[in-house]
């Protein structure tokens, strides 16, 4: 069966530190993968999506970047975190018309 793993579940990082959130999927090949951010009062915002290895589309300009080094791996990164990067980050994998979501990472930048 298809599953999606996202880690870590929670993260507290100081301002200016780097970030790396990892997402992997199992049980499928060549998935479309997405990173969303859920910020308080702002709903779910699409950050990046990838249709294949090395292919990244950015939806909003920001302090974050994404990479797809392997078919089933999608990484969200930052070189220097800002306070405004705090939020709940969700990795998603699309199957047909719907999507499966990871359990999310609660990032607090202090």
């Amino acid at each position, binding site marked *: 069966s298809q599953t999606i793993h996202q880690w870590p579940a929670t993260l507290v990082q100081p301002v200016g530190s780097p970030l790396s959130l990892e997402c992997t999927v199992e049980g499928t090949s060549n998935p479309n993968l997405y990173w969303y951010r859920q910020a308080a009062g702002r709903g779910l915002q699409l950050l990046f*999506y990838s249709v294949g290895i090395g292919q990244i589309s950015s939806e909003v300009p920001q302090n974050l970047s994404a990479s797809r080094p392997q078919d089933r791996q999608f990484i969200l990164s930052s070189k220097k975190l800002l306070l405004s990067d705090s939020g709940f980050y969700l990795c998603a994998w699309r199957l047909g018309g719907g999507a499966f979501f990871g359990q999310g990472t609660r990032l607090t930048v202090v």
Partner: protein
Amino acid sequence: AQSVSQHNHHVILSEAASLELGCNYSYGGTVNLFWYVQYPGQHLQLLLKYFSGDPLVKGIKGFEAEFIKSKFSFNLRKPSVQWSDTAEYFCAVKSSNSGNTPLVFGKGTRLSVIA
């Protein structure tokens, strides 16, 4: 570009009350529509989806939604809510013309059901 509007930020209902959460989207083409739910401390789950056919869609846990094309709406309904329905609800849309386009989400509506 597609966008989704959810009219209510926070809805508070008593148990057994009826629920209707509004969702409007803007997109001129053919769309697929979704409602997702996120219970406290849990991850997003699909409640129901509309692709084509009968515009009244039945989902899990007694939820349903009606696609009204002329109004660009996909409102979520439940005749009688329970305390366990307390959660955040997200409406989402994607173009059905391209297999790669991502879901665009509304800002979510928080539902609090009180005894």
